[in-house]
Structure formats: structure tokens, C-alpha cells
């Protein structure tokens, strides 16, 4: 049971990073295609929900981890911030029928790279588990 939860939790984290990679292409001036954009959205959404729900489930399931551990609280905080930045980017990047690139406002570009750094920080916290 715990192994399955851990697999799904890590898989959800792969989805999050995949969503960030897809959006990075758009922010860097790549064509915003409907299929690619939808794929990025689904990965980001499913990955975000999956990491949070399964992560909390794991924290409750594994002896030695508690939901109020500092590194788990830090991870949840980073998740909330990344989700907030991501929602701003999602609203602004809309597909074009001719698959052309989208000129994005500076604030949206900044929000995307902030989200990227927050996701990397989340991964660092998950691996280093500071204070555990």
C-alpha cells in the first residue's frame, strides 16, 4: 500500500514538472498548440492535486513522518505558492488556431519562472527533508 502511494506521489510530481516544461516552451516563444497546451494543463492539474493528496496521505501513513513536520509544512506552502503562480500563467496562455506563439505580459512570464523555481524548491525540500 505504502509503495503504491509513493509511486503515485512521485508520478504526480513527474506530471507537475512535465507541465512546467510544456509551459516553458510557450513562455520561450514556442507555438501554442491546443493539444500541447491541454496536455500541459492536465499534467499540471492532475500532478498538483495528486502530489498534495497523496503526499498528505503518505505523511499520515508512514511512521516517523507527521503532517506538522517543518519540511512537510514548507512543501505544502511551496505547493500553494506554485499553484497560485501557475493559475495566472494558465489563464494567460491560450492556444492559437494557427499554432503561432503568444506574446505574454512580463508579469505572466515572471509568474511562470517563479512557479518553476518554486517547483524546484519543492523537489529540493522533498529530497533533502530539512529537519527530518
Amino acid at each position, binding site marked *: 500500500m505504502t509503495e503504491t502511494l509513493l509511486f503515485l506521489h512521485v508520478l504526480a510530481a513527474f506530471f507537475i514538472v512535465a507541465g512546467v516544461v510544456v509551459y516553458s516552451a510557450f513562455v520561450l516563444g514556442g507555438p501554442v498548440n491546443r493539444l500541447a497546451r491541454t496536455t500541459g494543463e492536465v499534467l499540471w492539474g492532475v500532478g498538483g492535486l495528486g502530489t498534495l493528496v497523496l503526499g498528505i496521505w503518505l505523511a499520515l501513513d508512514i*511512521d516517523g513522518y507527521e503532517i506538522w513536520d517543518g519540511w512537510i509544512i514548507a512543501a505544502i506552502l511551496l505547493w500553494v505558492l506554485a499553484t497560485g503562480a501557475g493559475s495566472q500563467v494558465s489563464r494567460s496562455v491560450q492556444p492559437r488556431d494557427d499554432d503561432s506563439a503568444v506574446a505574454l505580459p512580463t508579469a505572466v512570464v515572471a509568474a511562470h519562472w517563479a512557479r518553476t523555481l518554486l517547483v524546484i524548491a519543492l523537489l529540493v525540500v522533498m529530497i533533502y527533508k530539512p529537519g527530518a
Partner: protein
Amino acid sequence: MMESLAAVRPDDWNLPLLLHVLGAMTLVGALVLATASLAATWRRGSHVLTRLGFRALLWAAIPAWIATRVGAEWVADEEMIPSDDPPSWVDVGYQVSDPGLLLLVVATILTGIGARRTARDTGSAVGLDRVATVLLAISLVTYLVAVWAMTTKPD
């Protein structure tokens, strides 16, 4: 198992593990981006999407594959995993990543030829894109197996 999952790793393992995991996640993301872009060209062809698929593979997936593999060797060295008789979950990693590189290189070459062909307007890239999409989809399935093996560590 619960105890081993909850155990905190030695600090020396964290940096190579971070490189390995971040590389693998970026690799999968780049493969997803390329697969979605190339799949979108199947019906009518699109130079910009073929080029996006090619660039995703060349600029993101191949460097990420290298980071993943360097991180894997580094963390295996830190953990003193025997290279001549590795545990089965490490073996799965090798069995997935080596053929994965071959598929990745072939798909990159195909999309590169396709992007060049469409840029010069000397032909269609749809056939090449279709083959590359299938190769990348196969890669993604095998990487799913690798993620399962790495996280559950079956005997």
C-alpha cells in the same frame, strides 16, 4: 518497508539524487512536449510544431537524459551499489535508459530531418513525425515502468 521509507538518507546522497530525479522529470516533460507537438502534426502537418518537437528533444530531452544518467551513476557510487550485480530495480533503470537513448536519438534525427524538409519546403514531415511520435510514446511507457521500479524497489 515502512521504516526504510521513513529513513533519512545520508546527506551525501541528496545532491546526486536531486540531479537524477530533476533530470528524469525534465526528460519526461520534454518527451511529453515533443510527443504532443508531433502528434498535433499528424493530420495536416505543421513546420512550427515539427520544429518545436525537434527543439524539445535536442535542447531539453538529450541534456536531461545525460543529467539523469550522470545522477544515477553518482548516486549508485555513493550508495556503493555493485555494478556487476545491481539490485533488480537498478537493473530496470539501465534496461530502460540505454534503449531510451537510442529511441531518443532516432526520434531527434527524424524530427530534425522533418523540420529541415518543411523549412526548405522540399516535402512533408508528417510520416517522419508519426514514426517519431510512436518512438517517443514507447519511451514514455518504459520510463513509467522505470519510475515504478525506482519508487517501489521490487526484489
